[in-house]
């Protein structure tokens, strides 16, 4: 169960830096701009400049670099796979042959490009969640989606769902551990056997977990209704997001850099 403890939702690192203090909407939009940049850029110089931008933001956020890089680790497999596929599957001038695998020059370039893009994408988006608490992130998403309510985007409902998920994930993790221990006390074995065996041994955990989750959902719905909940209509907020001049400046700066780098390199 050590694995489950490690899943920290949003991996937020609390702090007081200027990056932390920016409005979550600023950071979400800046992240999207940065992602757009990654798809505009076609040269290594461009990626290097993108990396430089990220590096400056990391410095400003005062988050240890190793925290930022940690986000890459779970996706290492995908990165290596991408690299290999491009290296050996692209047609072109063969520069190295290992047995039947042909590494081409074009493949080498494309592979490195794709991987740079991927790594910058991961770091860029994890910077958002590292510097923004899940609560503010939810508020930001709700606020940004609000204009699209007219075309049927359920902004408030999505935000409410995220909040409830965040609220109940630790509770459900605790509950899973409790059920596992109870089943282990009765001699259940989750560690040995082949993959099918292990999957099967999870059934006695999943069923009570689902039953309890549905009961929780039911009770929570009643409690919310008792507390006057009736959807987003007419609701005021405890926390009001403030888009300051600093946010405007940050956003203009990022947009400017994205346009400059995106169209020049």
């Amino acid at each position, binding site marked *: 169960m050590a694995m489950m403890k490690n899943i920290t939702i949003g991996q937020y690192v609390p702090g007081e830096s200027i990056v932390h203090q920016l409005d979550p909407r600023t950071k979400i939009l800046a992240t999207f701009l940065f992602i757009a940049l990654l798809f505009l850029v076609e040269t290594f110089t461009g990626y290097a400049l993108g990396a430089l931008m990220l590096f400056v933001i990391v410095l400003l956020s005062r988050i240890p670099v190793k925290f930022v890089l940690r986000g890459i680790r779970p996706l290492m497999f995908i990165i290596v796979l991408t690299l290999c596929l491009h290296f050996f599957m692209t047609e072109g001038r063969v520069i190295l042959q290992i047995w039947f695998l042909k590494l081409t020059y074009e493949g080498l370039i494309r592979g490195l490009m794709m991987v740079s893009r991927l790594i910058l994408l991961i770091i860029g988006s994890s910077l958002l969640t590292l510097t923004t608490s*899940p609560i503010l992130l939810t508020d930001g998403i709700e606020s940004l989606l609000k204009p699209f309510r007219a075309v049927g985007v359920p902004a408030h409902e999505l935000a409410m769902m995220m909040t409830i998920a965040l609220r109940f994930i630790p509770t459900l993790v605790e509950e899973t551990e409790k059920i596992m221990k109870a089943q282990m006390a009765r001699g259940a074995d989750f560690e040995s056997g082949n993959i099918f065996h292990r999957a099967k041994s999870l059934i006695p955990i999943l069923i009570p977990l689902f039953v309890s989750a549905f009961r929780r959902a039911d009770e929570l719905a009643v409690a919310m209704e008792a*507390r*006057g909940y*009736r959807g987003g209509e007419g609701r*005021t907020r*405890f926390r009001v997001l403030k888009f300051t001049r600093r946010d405007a400046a940050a956003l203009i700066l990022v947009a400017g850099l994205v346009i400059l780098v995106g169209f020049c390199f």
Partner: protein
Amino acid sequence: MDALIRFVDVSFSYSSDAEHELEALADINLDIDDGEFVAVLGHNGSGKSTLAKHMNALLVPTSGKVYVAGIDTQNAERLWEIRQMVGMVFQNPDNQLVATTVEEDVAFGPENLGVPTPEIHRRVDEALAVVGMSDYRLHSPHQLSGGQKQRVAIAGMIAMRPRCVVLDEPTAMLDPVGRREVMQTVIKLNREEKITIVLITHAMEEAILADRVIVMEEGRIVMTGTPREVFSKVETLAKLRLDVPEITSLANRLRQRGFDQIPNNILTIEEMVNVLCQFG
């Protein structure tokens, strides 16, 4: 003055064909006055929770009427007024907290009511102070003990400025420390904030704190009176599969053994001590 909550000939059954289904509530007539502290007792399935849910229009009667401050609970237009006036705290402390931090959870009710932001902040501060949870405002609910979670739930009610709080077995899942915390908060609400309390409970020790005790059986109110009146009827309570407080039961056993000087309506240990000291 009119009662704060008034039940007039209320019957309720969960399924629509009332003939086949046993009624969960039958012919309830009940007045709860402003400022009162009422405890509701009854065996499992006797209809206590169903009664409670009628008090803030989570359920409406199949026949009869429920009025909250004179408003018919079937009046859908004034539903939110009723929900604001009568708050509800449930048994499972986990399944009624919605937000990821204590302060935001307390703010949930006022947000739903459309209270302006600065006023929400004032109310949250105040409500957390009343339940003694101000130091935990930035904690997330899963970091709290059961008793603390229940106090946060109570704060969430207070922030809505209710006239009545209905608590449905709020201590059933708590340890003794948690129970004491919650009961102290409930008494404080009643005495200091003058909020009407309806407490559903299985613990007789909690019921003796009330002004009035109501006993339910099969959807009916079968006994009502002060705790002293109700708990002196040991045989009737036993027939309803209910206990009396331990100390009352001890007094009764002593009486049966011939200690006639011991009255049959002892509720607390202090009273027992006083009586025993007079034996000399």
